């Protein structure tokens, strides 16, 4: 799964490169503490299956997500990023996810503008009661990123 991690560090996406046969994407999941993280908990306790490619980081609120986190994840290990928070209106901090929503849009558009596919970075609203939805979202994101292939392999380096 982690072939040539080093090359990844110094690389930037070169698409349409053939993925190694046993390749599995690494997806960074940034989940808000109050809804999505609890939702993912529920998915677990309800024994719903979802792809194991996601690596979850818990944060206090979706508005804590600096676009920096997304960029940094892509630059290092992740092939894709999923950010998830409370549904609009349900934010534990009243309006955090409204602010976050604006940032997400700009981040997504800018990444697309510099040549990354829209689906590399995805966002979702998952509440604490939506165990099944979380599983579906992760499945969809994993599926999308698998289609796009690995985000790495550009060996030209720094000459």
């Amino acid at each position: 799964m982690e072939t040539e991690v080093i090359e990844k560090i110094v690389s930037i996406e070169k698409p349409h490169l053939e993925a190694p046969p046993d390749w599995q994407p690494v997806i960074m999941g940034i989940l808000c503490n109050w809804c999505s993280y609890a939702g993912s908990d529920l998915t677990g306790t309800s024994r719903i299956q979802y792809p194991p490619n996601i690596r979850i980081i818990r944060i206090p609120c979706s508005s804590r997500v600096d676009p920096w986190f997304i960029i940094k994840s892509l630059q290092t290990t992740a092939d894709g990023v999923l950010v998830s928070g409370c549904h609009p209106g349900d934010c534990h901090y009243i309006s955090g996810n409204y602010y976050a929503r604006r940032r997400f849009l700009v981040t997504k558009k800018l990444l697309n503008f510099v040549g990354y596919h829209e689906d590399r970075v995805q966002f979702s609203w998952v509440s604490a009661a939506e165990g099944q939805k979380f599983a579906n979202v992760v499945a969809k994101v994993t599926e999308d990123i698998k289609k796009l292939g690995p985000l790495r392999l550009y060996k030209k380096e720094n000459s």
Partner: protein
Amino acid sequence: MDYTKQIKEIAGKLFSEEKIDVFIGYRNSGFDENQVPVLIHHYQDVDQLVFTEKSVFNLTNYLKYEHTRNKRVGLVVKGCDSRALNLMLTENQVKRENLYIVGIACEGVVDEAGQKAQNCLECVMPDSVVFDEMLGTPSGKREYQVNADIRELDGKELTERLTYFEEVFENCIRCNACRHSCPLCYCDKCCIDQETSTLYHGANTTSSAFHALMTWSLHLAGRCVDCRNCEKACPSHLPLHLLHKQNEKVVYENFQEHQAGMIEGDRGAFYKYSMSDPDDFIM
């Protein structure tokens, strides 16, 4: 556009009335036609000041530094500079009562080749939006139009854009000149400096440039006023405006036609929200 005489007069008056400690303006470099920003502390130096269409650099940048902290400052601002200043004021970086602002109704500055600069052609607000005194005749706000380069790149394939920006990031030497010359990058500790950031490491590789430039432009999204100090500073001549213009476009189109620094007290697109913001990209 030549306000040299008026600016000399104003600065002279301010010094003789002891209203300011330092005046920030431009002087001729003495070597070529370019102008050098100058910080004047005494009445007798006022004669150096000039202002023509060669006065390119955004002077609000100097309000970041220790020289001007807690001092009474007079400075010259063009339309775009004044928008940056407006943001600095609302973000509490400078105190309004410490400033004496000489606003300019700008007719556009010229680039190195002597042509009218690209950002001036697309300028939405040539007149100073915040000032104590205004020079020239204001021509008012102009219609927003999408940058030509952005339109061109938008029409291209994803992979074409990727190759293009790959080259941009490859040519970046990570000198951070863009950040230092930006008046709105006033953080003491920057997240893209090796020495102060726990996440960023300092290697000058392509991907580190990707990381740094993307993060930097996203932190300026909804705030960039298109003064192009960063592009002027970039030794690699990278088209940094593309990233900012793209953000500006997204912000303008989606967030109630928001434009940075136009209104006093307006803190920028990401300090507010609307219930009707686009939501369709979120699952």
